[in-house]
């Protein structure tokens, strides 16, 4: 039986000028927050797990990155934030005999950032646009206001690498791109690029997305150069 809602005839012919990112940049909706290469940022040391309690050794409470959408949820024209990619370049490896290096991405309702870290300045990649970002972004040894609330949503969790990383190891998190491939040896002694597929995430007004990183026996702080790219739009328009 044919799908009555989706016939197989009467397709419309289109010429697709831009796919996603470049179209978003053209309308002034695309931003990048990057750190100068010579100024890496240390994340919190000795974060050993991702348990959901307020402790400096738990990645939920000591996130490596916190992105808050400052828009008012009651504003019908408020923008949502759509992460596109996050790139971390290792300049100082995580100290300690770590046997695994892990991450999680967690949404939560409210501004979860309390202190610490370094603020990143969003840049509109289209200088012709006067749009400015509604995101407040911190990377580094961030401290959360509290453990995740009951509204928190774990949207991705996984292992990045085994053993201690190598200086110049680069991790690229792709958001919402089903064509992302993850084909890499995780314990290679040589520096490597590692792609990580994560789902699309919509950071609604008044919500926070945080990156949590941890490892077994992780002691001294890892340091990264960070680059974060995202779009901002009124949802559905």
């Amino acid at each position, binding site marked *: 039986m044919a799908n009555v809602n989706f016939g197989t005839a009467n397709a419309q012919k*289109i010429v697709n000028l831009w796919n996603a990112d470049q179209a978003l940049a053209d309308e002034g909706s695309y931003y990048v927050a990057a750190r100068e290469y010579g100024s890496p940022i240390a994340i919190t040391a000795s974060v050993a797990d991702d348990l959901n309690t307020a402790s400096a050794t738990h990645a939920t409470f000591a996130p490596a990155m916190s992105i808050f959408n400052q828009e008012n949820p009651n504003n019908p024209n408020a923008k949502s934030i759509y992460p596109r990619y996050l790139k971390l370049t290792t300049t100082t490896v995580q100290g300690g005999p770590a046997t695994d290096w892990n991450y999680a991405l967690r949404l939560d309702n409210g501004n979860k950032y309390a202190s610490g870290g370094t603020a990143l300045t969003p840049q509109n990649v289209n200088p012709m646009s006067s749009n400015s970002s509604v995101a407040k972004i911190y990377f580094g040894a961030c401290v959360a206001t509290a453990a995740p609330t009951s509204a928190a949503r774990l949207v991705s969790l996984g292992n990045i690498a085994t053993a201690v990383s190598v200086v110049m190891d680069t991790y690229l998190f792709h958001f919402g791109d089903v064509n992302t491939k993850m084909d890499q*040896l995780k314990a290679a002694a040589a520096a490597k690029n590692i792609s990580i597929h994560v789902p699309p995430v919509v950071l609604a007004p008044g919500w926070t997305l945080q990156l949590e990183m941890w490892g077994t026996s992780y002691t001294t702080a890892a340091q990264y150069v960070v680059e974060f790219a995202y779009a901002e739009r009124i949802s559905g328009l």
Partner: protein
Amino acid sequence: MANANFPGASSQKVSNLWNADYALADEGSYFAGANAWTAANTGIVITASIADDALPAGATSAPNSPAMIIYNAENANNPNAVSIYPRYCKLTTKVIPLTTVTWFYAWRLDNANRYASGGTALTMNNVNPGSTRAAKGAVTFGVLAVNTTTVSSAHRLVSNGTLAGAAPVVLDTYLWQFGAPSLAMDSARAATVKSMTIQAPPVVIPPGWSLQLELWGATYGATGAQYDVEWGHVERTPGL
């Protein structure tokens, strides 16, 4: 000769703001779930001693002991019922399937709720907190008991293959991407820790149907493999 049904002129110019996943997330149709990290850090155990994927399935056959079931609980008679469109499945190995030297998988559709009991239910989160839509799909991973001893005559094998040509390694990560034809599969398959991408076809789970993941190895012994799992899917009324 020109194609009379598809003339060579009169195309419309567009700029595509969102490709697939983000448009689906924006409308509140995209759901993702993962098992939470625990102090034991051991992931979720699956059934041990699954040696084959034979049909009709025996007690040690993967169709009767799937590692994962996704069930569309919508009523098939509801014209507005949503279908489920898998987008990706990611498994991270916490305990390897001893002493498997070759590790296989299959994805199989069936026209029934295959899930009876067992395993761990994943909380499927709408990745857009601005949407109030809740997931209709029930996703369970682990040691699963099925409702019938074997799949129905309506079952459809939609994908199968080999995950590793040598013994899996702790922290091996497998990523299935559904319906991404340009995806490459370029991973090493040797017994060294690795991430591996696997192409799978687009799959539609209609109301009342299940999709199950089957894992097996000819010499897979009495200790169940254990995984962290992450799953993403879309829910939409077909064609709308």
